[in-house]
């Protein structure tokens, strides 16, 4: 191998080794144009990998999205979904799970705060999980609701009951020191109610997170055929 090898490595200073033939015309690294001496294009991409149109700013704002997934109700499905979300650092606001009208199916409803490409990725990554049958974003006019349990100081029971009535809440437990109330409704209504209860001193709170169904005939998860009572949900895949 020494001497007559036919490759063309450059001989460097003092490099008279037979291994490094003199007839190499290739520029040595030090003769190659340095990083700043090379031509560089003007264009750029943003952090989502989208080419930036110099006129239109292409940064994406985060928004709230409700994602509904129809899944096989097998052991570990929630761990798979939550593991996916945490591993990929998606910004999740709430996650609810419950059975559907089909035995062996569950619905997972996830509220996320992400940019459009992020929401798109969540849907695509969830769709890759084997137990996920169908997944999609529920449109903006979906019917959404959340259940909240709320424990407040019982210093003024009459006032607590009055506020509770105003928001169609129910008193689940009333004692000498605390009153526990149940509220349901969409986000705006819950927020308003919580504001009103704050005056009494909120001791503890438990929220389920939003759950949602698409309005009217629209399927909640893509391809889902909504059923009525006794008529099971089906899905064409």
């Amino acid at each position, binding site marked *: *191998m*020494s*001497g007559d*090898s036919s*490759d063309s*490595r*450059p*001989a*460097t*200073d*003092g*490099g*008279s*080794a037979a*291994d*490094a033939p003199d007839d190499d015309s*290739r*520029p*040595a*690294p*030090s003769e*190659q*144009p*340095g*990083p*700043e001496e*090379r*031509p*560089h*294009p*003007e*264009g*750029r*991409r*943003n*952090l*989502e*990998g*989208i*080419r930036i149109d110099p006129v239109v700013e292409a940064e994406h704002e985060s928004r709230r999205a409700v994602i509904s997934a129809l899944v096989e109700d097998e*052991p*570990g499905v929630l*761990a*798979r979904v939550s*593991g*996916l979300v945490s*591993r990929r650092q998606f910004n999740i606001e709430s996650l609810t799970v419950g059975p559907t009208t089909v035995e062996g199916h569950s619905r997972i409803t996830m509220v996320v705060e992400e940019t459009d*490409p992020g929401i*798109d*990725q969540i849907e*695509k*990554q969830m*769709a*890759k*999980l*084997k137990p996920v049958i169908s997944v999609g974003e529920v449109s903006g006019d979906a019917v959404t609701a959340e259940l909240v349990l709320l424990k407040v100081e019982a210093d003024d029971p009459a006032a607590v009951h009055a506020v509770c009535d105003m928001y169609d809440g129910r008193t689940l437990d009333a004692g000498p020191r605390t009153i526990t109330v149940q509220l349901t409704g969409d986000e705006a209504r819950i927020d308003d109610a919580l504001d009103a209860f704050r005056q009494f001193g909120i001791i503890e709170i438990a929220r389920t997170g939003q759950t949602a169904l698409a309005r009217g005939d629209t399927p909640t998860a893509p391809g889902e055929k909504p059923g009525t009572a006794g008529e099971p949900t089906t899905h064409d*895949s």
Partner: protein
Amino acid sequence: MSDTAAHPREDDPEGAEEPAEGADDAPAADPDETPAAGAVSTGAESVVAALEAAGAETAFGVQGGAIMPVYDALYSSSIDHVTMAHEQGAVHAADAYGVVSGEPGLCLATSGPGATNLVTGIADADMDSDAMLALTGQVPTEFVGNDAFQETDTIGVTRPITKHNYFAGGADTVGDTVGEAFELSRAGRPGPTLVDLPKDVTQDETDETPGPAAPPAGTDPDPNADADAVEAAARAIEEAERPLCLFGGGVIKAEASDAARTFARTYGIPVTTTMPGIGSFPEDDELSLSWAGMHGTGYANMAITHTDCLIAVGTRFDDRLTGGIDTFAPEAEVVHVDIDPAEISKNVYADHPLIGDAERVLDQLTAAVREAPDAEAWRERCAEWKETYPLTYATPEDEPLKPQFVVEAFDEATDDDTIVTTGVGQHQMWASQFWTYTEPRTWVSSHGLGTMGYGVPAAVGARVAADNMGEPDRDVICFDGDGSFLMTMQELSVAVREDLDITFAVLNNEYIGMVRQWQDAFYEGRHMASDYTWMPEFDKLAEAFGALGLRVDDYDEVAPAVEEALDYDGPAVIDFHVDPEENVLPMVPSGGANGKFATAEDQL
């Protein structure tokens, strides 16, 4: 090959002669034609019958309590078993077996420590989308969750690093589960799957023979891309002035290398590959710009930076390829072909997403592009960049042996179909830079996870695959670093036992060199924990294992040693003492712009 199954049992001469019924007509790719497995009497027999029916030929593994029933069922199976020294060896060997053969690799381990020893290799296969099935023993179902002896939550541990994992529910269904897992590993985008096998499930009696193996519904997607999307992409390609193909590992996995070559050559489009895509396009072709990314060629990175139409096939745009996303192919319209919709616009926005099988979509594209893009000037520019930024290194006489020279010496001494495996570090980069790859499935390395120690067991798996494929004359070379070699060199014992013809070239720089390089570049030369002057003498170690051991210090010893090792029929280790200060260049600093690669240290 096997130390058990291939030889007839002494007490049962027919044992190995008569494999389970149906085993011989395997394999078959089409699930409809896959024969159902032969009669079984236990869950373990059902597991083995399912594997035989799915076409598995070789398993790599280590015995243990919880997996013993499966091993017992392998005793009279047509499937060869290669006992490895460590489960990490088994999983990397299975992975490499899959890369070389194109069939899913198969590895076995017992519960607890056996299963956790597989974890690195499963994660490695997951990152590189390699089809592989891992079978792990588990404590009996009634003990699961009780912290029983050698219990680990294998399903929980491997959930994020598998395509899907299964907890076997019972002896009647376990065969079908294993068959499904095997097929799922190669369906659509390949990846590792795992079946956790509680001991009672494999021990229990059953007469349920597994049905034909098929992937679960919806996991084998439509291979064709949307026709309108193909048309739109074809128009973009026709109009491009600076088109560039970027072929990733997906091209090789989809057996699309021929289609890729046809496409690029038909339309005269220059080609660069990702590191896992090495071999998809011949690097000695005029159109080839070799591979791009952190240590890719300067000309590939210049082309990526200046292209106006990037035709990316089967790549996930890893950050080692892209550098900073904001400067990656900043002027390019991106055509992205991938079987996995989740890869589309994950890292780089795709103007033309083409979801489908790489081979089919490349055929679709080849048909849809009517006119070659007018790219004469661009091709000339690419050729100039090749002249301006060649891969080079200095070989002055008074310097220690250069590692690049060793790689070139092996390349010259071997044929095109030679299989190269590597560990991870500088040697891996030199093995990819200074070897001219021309064929798919000849470059076997750890890309996405970057696992030191991959090289030795991968060489074992690659050798077994080549032998199984009836190609014993192909050379298998493992380029390893001293640090990487030390991590899994116990598998040398397997190479000796199985008499595997492999040449291990240790590029010994007495450093974990890639770390030393970064310390010099970014940590002011503080060599914290990278100084490996305590390395054993690998040639003597090789002899202790029963392999041929050679040591090389100078240039003129290289050729004779290479020749002796290649001629040697069995495992040979050459301990090449190379220049400890040599660095891998060019280099795009982490997160930097591809076009701003450094060709010398002082540019970092």
